[in-house]
């Protein structure tokens, strides 16, 4: 029942968009096919492959580094490696564009060292390229893989790694032959989250000049005023994503990943001295590039601004709005995600998995497209309520859901359901079915079993999912812009407003605030992860 409701609510905006797409768009596809389609598809594919490979390898390697090895500063790295999560893609793109620009600090120093007079005499290749985009996105997206994979290494691999050792497997083979195959569901979840983030990114692509299919959606809609055509492209993108994800699931459909044993951490290899320091520096590099550099850059810019004009009192209201709405959306998304994943576990037949898969596709869509879908669902409801109360009671409620910001929370949930549903699903996969049976034999209803057995056992992955959703809501921009009520500002909209005016220094304060809000849950999560 609850699961059905979740699926319906998650699917309504997508269906609304589907009906838009059906309205047809004459000549769109011949035009696209004859012009940008192949190039956009190629760019999209290269971007996805690149981010998948770079962020995937980084995430897995780093997760292994901090679970299988012990070295000075490991505890610090364990959570610091999550910090780049707090940096939105558009901020990392803007920062590096500025720092690496021919007139920026880096190239300036190089010219000074080499004795060149000006940028016209010597300059490095432009960061505005597909390669640049892959690298920059990977820098802030690898934590999705790191987070999910580390949880798996921590809780599951330990016993089997020890068993493999007992059976005489050399240490260096453990990673490849035991840990990696076991972590595959977690890696798949992490990588697909990173890929979907990369796919629906428009901010960084705009700065870096990368033309993915997502950009074609905007061109078709905004420049050519063709919403139907734009939703058709969006739906095509969805098909690509759903195919990829289903393929991965199909490829491991015969494998089970449950473990009954109570987990305990793997015994790491200790490294001291130079080797220890080396390992630490290796692990610290992504933190520096993905967090310290952009956050430091923002801090410097924000400090300049603060000295110049002080802090705007708006920031307090914005902080409240940001935290309140992101928090509300996190709770809603978590409940919906657990419901969906648990219903999937209980179900038999083909329909529930399909419904589950469909209800999480909001994540693969650009924020604005989701927002339009939500508008198409919520606005008629608002109008109906307003019309009815006017007719019966003579009072106007105005726009109840849009006006109160409820529509925005709904949009966040539709957009990010994939994260909590995915982490709930991954967590539940590790709870053996025998526990379900045992609970039911003891007279627990499914709901009671969920509360008493499954939720406690999946706490770590659920908190990871909740954290990701919260940070994503704080960073979310396009849906927030479109669905917010009058006079409603969050850090992200403030940042966008300043950027739109070109007052980037003022924007840096809001940007720094987004990063700061993003750090808090990272710290909280690292504690939960350790205790679990």
């Amino acid at each position, binding site marked *: 029942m609850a699961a059905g409701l979740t699926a319906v609510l998650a699917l309504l905006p997508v269906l609304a968009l589907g009906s838009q797409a059906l309205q047809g768009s004459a000549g769109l596809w011949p*035009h696209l096919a004859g012009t*940008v389609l192949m190039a956009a598809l190629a760019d999209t594919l290269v971007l996805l492959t690149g981010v998948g490979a770079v962020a995937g390898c980084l995430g897995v390697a780093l997760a292994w580094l901090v679970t299988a090895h012990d070295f000075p500063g490991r505890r610090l790295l364990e959570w610091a490696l999550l910090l780049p999560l707090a940096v939105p893609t558009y901020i990392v793109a803007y920062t590096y564009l500025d720092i690496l620009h021919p007139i920026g600090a880096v190239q300036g120093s190089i010219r000074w060292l080499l004795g060149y007079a000006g940028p016209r005499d010597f300059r490095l290749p432009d960061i505005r390229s597909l390669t640049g985009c892959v690298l920059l996105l990977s820098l802030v997206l690898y934590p999705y893989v790191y987070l999910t994979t580390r949880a798996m290494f921590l809780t599951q691999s330990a016993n089997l790694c020890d068993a493999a050792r007992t059976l005489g497997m050399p240490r260096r083979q453990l990673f490849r032959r035991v840990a990696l195959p076991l972590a595959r569901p977690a890696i798949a979840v992490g990588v697909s989250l990173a890929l979907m983030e990369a796919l629906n990114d428009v901010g960084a692509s705009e700065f870096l000049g990368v033309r993915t299919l997502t950009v074609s959606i*905007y061109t078709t809609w905004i420049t050519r005023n063709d919403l139907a055509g734009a939703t058709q492209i969006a739906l095509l993108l969805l098909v690509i994503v759903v195919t990829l994800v289903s393929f991965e699931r199909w490829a491991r459909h015969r494998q089970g990943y449950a473990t009954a044993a109570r987990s305990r951490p793997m015994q790491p290899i200790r490294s001291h001295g130079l080797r220890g320091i080396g390992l630490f520096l290796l692990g610290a590099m992504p933190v520096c590039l993905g967090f310290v550099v952009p956050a430091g850059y923002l801090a410097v810019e924000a400090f300049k601004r603060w000295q110049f004009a002080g802090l705007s009192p708006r920031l307090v209201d914005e902080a409240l709005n940001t935290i309140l709405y992101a928090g509300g959306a996190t709770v809603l998304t978590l409940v919906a995600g657990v419901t969906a994943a648990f219903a999937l576990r209980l179900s038999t037949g083909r329909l529930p998995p399909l419904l589950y898969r469909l209800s999480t596709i909001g994540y693969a869509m650009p924020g604005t497209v989701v927002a339009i879908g939500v*508008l198409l669902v919520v606005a008629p409801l608002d109008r109906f309520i307003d019309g009815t109360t006017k007719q019966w009671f003579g*009072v106007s409620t105005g726009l109840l859901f849009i006006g109160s910001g409820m529509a925005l929370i709904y949009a966040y949930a539709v957009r990010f359901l994939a994260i909590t549903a995915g982490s709930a699903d991954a967590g539940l996969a590790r709870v053996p079915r025998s526990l379900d049976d045992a609970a039911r034999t003891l007279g627990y209803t499914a709901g009671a079993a969920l509360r008493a057995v499954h939720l406690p056992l999946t706490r770590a992955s659920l908190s990871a999912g909740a954290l990701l959703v919260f940070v994503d809501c704080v960073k979310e921009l*396009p849906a927030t812009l479109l669905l917010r009520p009058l006079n409603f500002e969050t850090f992200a909209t403030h940042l966008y407003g300043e950027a739109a005016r*070109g007052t980037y220094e003022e924007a840096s304060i809001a940007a720094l605030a987004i990063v700061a809000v993003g750090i808090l849950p990272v710290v909280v999560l690292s504690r939960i992860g350790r205790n679990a």
Partner: protein
Amino acid sequence: MRQMLLGLTAFTTLAAAGQAAADVNIYTTREPGLIQPLIDSFSKSTGVAVNTVFLKDGLAERVATEGESSPADILMAVDAGNLVDLVDKGVTQPIDSAVLKDAVPAQLRDENGHWFGLSYRARVVYVAKDLDINTLHYEDLADPKWKGKLCIRSGQHPYNTALFASHIVHNGAEATETWLSGLKENLARKAAGGDRDGARDILGGICDIAVANSYYVGLMRSGKGGEEQVTWGEAIKVILPTFRDGGTQVNISGASIAKHAPNKEEAIKFLEYLVSDEAQEIYAKANYEYPVKAGVAADPIIASFGELVVDKTPLSEIVKHRKTASELADKVGFDS
């Protein structure tokens, strides 16, 4: 349940009270901070509060779906094309205001009164300071002598779409395709980023000339964008290019009255205030745009570019060629 009902009652009372006070509600795709001084001075003299929400994409969709329950009174947008889209979606209403008609030149407003330009900007060319060049036709931008030396933002950005559409009006679609191929050949880097990047990249030695909007020069040189941008603004000089058989291409920021505007009267008053001498002056000073009203001077930084000869083509005519312009940009692979 009881509490929910109470809450609902309180909410509706508030909503009703809010409406009684006759605020003006603005949905805008322009950052409201740009007109904040105008809002403040209007509210002070009339006692009418102004509420704003800044949207990026989807303004038309939002107002359309909100329908008759929408609180929006005024819809503000940049680019005539976006205003025409609002009219096409049926979310605007015509207004008949002598004040607006007198202040806004016919070429910069809708003939049926659905939208009015409030300020305008020119699509100009930034060139490196040491370059010996003072005039330019838009057509010359495709000249191979600029090969690898031109910077411009995405060919699908509305600023460029409008420029390309104007080129179609002046030279036809076929010649425009050739011209766009030439432009593409001349690019020094990917067509991306914003207009200000043109100035920054000229300073960085990446390009010699860049196509960009006029007001950014004011924003950069005045220091409003921070110290660093002053150096970008000082690294360039500005040329007001013209079409061979016309003037400089301009575009507007403008406004419409929403079809279901609950506070139409106050909304019209606000628009009329925006074209008053006082407001137009603030507009010009704060945003470095050209005032629409004759007799109001542009900011000195903008005036220093020289005399602007505005192209005579009505904006509504340019808007008709937007789709072709956008498709041609795709066809020549402008952004790839």
